């Protein structure tokens, strides 16, 4: 095995030990090194290809943010407990699934991540969480176990039993050609059950909204990407048109379904959960388009959505956790005054929401741009299906914009409660120091990371459309955007001290 892999394993051990002893420095160092290793592999060269490395970096970043966040979260919400061990082991398990080099490590880490995911969902034991956990097991865990077993079986039918266990992940797609279609269907259904696409999607809203906030961040941010990763790995071997087109439509319909249902929710975490369903549906659609047309643009679109979604969704989930701690409620109809009370949280939420809507120059904008360009390419290739697809995709994008504004009304909305419930009285400085600063890590990376991520996706996939004329406007717009948001923040802070404030009725 590579020397890099040993470094990786030692960092994992460091994180786990640091977690048991509640040491922040050890964990921080561990996560940062874990983020650097795949970066090194991407740029200089290493055993992991681009997609694994990118997903692993995302896992490390989300893990870092959630892990640091959990320390204060569990003190403030539960008064102690062992949530941080759960979160750390969970993040590490997801990370090692992405950086697994052979099939057996992949399966072992996948199973461990699934089981820890269950324990994270049922962390607060009540009837609701137990039902959600049960649904998670039946709808998500069992089909993905079937998919993993089918994957192993198909491999051992090709190369023999022991070699199948140690096959390298990169070659799985090439080895699996020529199997009966039922096996492909079982594998794809299992993997998209993990990624929560119709028809096996209905476990996600309850599971992600009832888990504690940092666990939801990891679950929504990176664990649904495991399913997408599995689909990506077996994709080169599937060449039956009807399978690809069926899953294309599953993905697109999921996008619209998630968006529509997100509009109707009152619980802020449920809005975010349905938004996750929408985005994974779009990712799966784009992967299918990539396989159908063999263009690179859909793949770039899928990767960009993966990146942007991981970053802003985890930031938003951590944000919703802070809202829950500050105001002890999760219903939008009782919130709305928060921009006035906690402006730092509002700023972080604003950055993530802008990324979700797709305002340039956030990474969300790049993702939506690639999405629409890919749909137009597909429209040229296949007019009928392309038309249906572009209608559904643009509908989904619009819905994303609408429900993210609905989430924003938690901060800038009309506050309808009584005066008493406004005086919760938590010290703002403690809040900012303990919780908010960790949310900024993914949120800011969503903006600052736009140029590197875009350039990385385009060049490493070999597209070569990067030119100076494109880079310069992006850079300039980033600066303007940052200046604008800072101005908004200053105005917010000023507005919270006097009566004039932006929008909404006075309490």
């Amino acid at each position, binding site marked *: 095995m590579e020397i890099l892999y040993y470094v990786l394993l030692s960092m994992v051990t460091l994180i786990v030990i640091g977690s048991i002893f509640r040491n922040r420095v050890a964990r921080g160092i561990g996560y940062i090194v874990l983020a650097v290793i795949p970066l090194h592999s991407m740029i200089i060269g290493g055993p992991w290809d681009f997609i694994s490395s990118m997903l692993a970096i995302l896992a490390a970043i989300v893990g870092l943010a959630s892990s640091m966040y959990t320390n204060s979260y569990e003190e403030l919400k539960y008064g102690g407990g062992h949530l941080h061990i759960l979160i750390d082991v969970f993040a590490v398990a997801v990370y090692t699934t992405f950086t697994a080099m052979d099939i*057996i490590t992949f399966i072992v880490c996948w*199973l461990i991540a699934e089981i820890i995911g269950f*324990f994270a969902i049922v962390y607060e*034991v009540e009837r609701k969480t137990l039902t959600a*956990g049960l649904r998670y*097991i039946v709808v998500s865990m069992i089909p993905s176990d079937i998919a993993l077993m089918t994957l192993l079986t198909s491999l*051992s039918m090709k190369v023999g039993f*022991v070699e199948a266990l140690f096959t390298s992940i990169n070659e799985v797609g090439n080895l699996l050609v020529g199997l009966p279609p039922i096996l492909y269907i*079982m594998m794809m259904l299992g993997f998209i059950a993990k990624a929560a696409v119709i028809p096996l999607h209905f476990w996600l809203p309850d599971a992600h909204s009832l888990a504690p906030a940092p666990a939801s961040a990891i679950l929504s941010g990176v664990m649904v990407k495991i399913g997408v990763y599995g689909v990506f790995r077996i994709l080169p071997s599937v060449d039956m048109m009807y399978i690809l087109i069926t899953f294309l439509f599953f993905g697109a319909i999921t996008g619209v379904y998630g968006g529509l249902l997100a509009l109707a929710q009152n619980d802020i975490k449920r809005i975010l959960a349905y938004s996750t369903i929408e985005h994974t549906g779009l990712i799966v659609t784009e992967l299918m388009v990539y396989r159908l047309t063999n263009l690179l643009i859909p793949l770039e679109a899928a990767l960009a959505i993966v990146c942007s979604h991981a970053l802003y969704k985890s930031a938003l989930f951590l944000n919703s956790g802070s809202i829950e701690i500050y105001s002890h409620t999760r219903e939008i109809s009782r919130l709305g005054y928060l921009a006035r009370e906690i402006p730092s949280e509002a700023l972080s939420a604003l950055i993530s929401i802008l990324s979700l809507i797709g305002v340039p120059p956030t990474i969300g904008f790049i993702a939506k741009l690639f999405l629409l360009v890919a749909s137009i390419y597909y429209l040229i290739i296949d007019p009928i299906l392309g038309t249906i697809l572009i209608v559904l995709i643009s509908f989904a994008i619009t819905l994303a914009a609408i429900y993210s504004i609905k989430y924003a009304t938690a901060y800038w909305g009309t506050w309808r409660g009584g005066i008493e419930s406004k005086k919760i009285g938590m010290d703002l400085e403690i809040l900012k120091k303990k919780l908010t600063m960790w949310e900024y890590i993914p949120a800011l990376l969503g903006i600052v990371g736009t140029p590197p991520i875009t350039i990385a996706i385009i060049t490493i996939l070999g597209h070569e459309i990067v030119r100076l004329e494109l880079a310069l406007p992006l850079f300039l717009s980033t600066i303007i955007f940052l200046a604008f948001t800072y101005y908004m923040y200053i105005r917010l802070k000023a507005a919270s001290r006097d009566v004039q404030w932006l929008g909404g009725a006075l309490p």
Partner: protein
Amino acid sequence: MILHEVGLIPILLALAGFITPIFTLFTRNRYFYSTYMLVIAVIVLLFSYKTMSAVVEGHIVVYPFGGWPPPLGITYTVDFMNGVLGLLASVLFLKISIYSFWYYGKITGYEWLTTLILLLMTGVIGCLYTGDIFNFFVMLEILCVSSYALVAFFKKRRWAIEASISYAFIGAIATTFFLFGVSFIYAAYGTLNMADIAAKAQNIPLTTMNLWSGLCIDDICFGNIALASVVSIALMLWALTFEAGLFPNNYWLPSAYTEAPTPASALFAGIVDKVGTYGVLRVMLTIFSSSSILMFKVLGISFRDLVLLILSILGMVSGYLGSLVMIIQRDVKRFLSYSTISHIGLLFIPFIGLSSNYSEEVIAKTLAAILFHSIVHALSESMLFIGLGTLATISGSRKIDDMSGYGRLYPIITLAITLGLLNLLGLAPFPGFFSKYMMFLPMIEASAYLQAISIVIISGISAVGYFRIIYLLFLPKPKNIQEKHRIVLPSILCISVALILLILGITYMIYGVYDTMVGYGKMVVSSDGVREYIMAVDIVYMKLISGGGK
């Protein structure tokens, strides 16, 4: 080859079992009985290890009792299938005898428990190693009577007596009908030796056994063997699936396993149901194998394949039933017995891969999967019974809620229990994952997709139950904090079994255990393998005449 150790094991166990009541006149010291059982267990383990190493070298071990040639005398025939299960039985016996050092301090009447366990092991090893079908009946009866008595051991508890009554009545009928089936076989074939019956059923010419039991001409030996085989299969399979615990014969299993004392429950869940499975395998694979008289067509498929298909469907039903009912249990031993029912269902699901229309490769892989899953399930389920039984004994009640939070008071044994539960769930890198995968693989190759998916779904449903126990043991605070009991010995035992399981899983990948097992499976199931089994018994007469030896 003729090995004397094979014959010594059941004799030693039976003798030891019958001498024990005499010892009660002299001593009542519990360490004496535990040491006694431990010594016997070690000797039995050494003997069965020696037998197994002879089998692994490629011989089929035959032991004619009393020097009488088969089919006049009773022979014990050991090939890979029963060698592996015999070794497993002795390992479980060793585990129980180590546990008894701690357990005998908690109960009274342990000298009778020793007697009964020794007799139970006699029945188990006799059933596993025997090569004569009436001897199988006798050993099955010894096993059954000992297990009736073991279930009723705590005779002051009313539900133990009730469990024993409902088990014993139907068990007595089932084994009586087994005798009825054996009588049909004797009436038609004229012989009781398994190898001889196999040869006559498959029309393989023999050299020496024909001298005693006559030749068969064209389907008529002493009587019409086709009809007789069908009737006897029906009767024998009832008794065997009753002992194995397959739906619908498993109504007795939860009550019986719950009320028996912990070492006996561990033995029941570990090896007694495997005896039933082994009986079905031996009957369907060696005696009535693919080229035998049972292959006449009924409704378009051959009768033997129809039987295997029905067994597979019953396996699926009992798997689902076991795992679904397991989730709502509150009594921990009842929980484990429903888990056993679902795993026995999992053992019977791959039986469809043994049908004759699949290649020998697939049949060998199926057999290897069934044997490996038997081993893994036996080790982990008996360890779970020991661990959770210990916790039940020291908490004074069998309800799961009364044991909540014990994970913090007794961390080592709870860690072992968690590892055992994760193994049964099928988490890699435990061998539980590999055994389920080994069962999944030939199902896909045989295009039996429903069975393959059922295996994974049943494991997933049982996950809910197992997670509940893990959660209840670890996370809540313990209710009534009394003084900590000393459970050093069971903790060490359980954690060493858990470590052995982990090491088994890891070496499985590295040392190619799969290919060896499939190779041995081929030795058993292929037509050459069956022929070798028969011939090995056949030439015993020659060996005995030429001066008894290897």
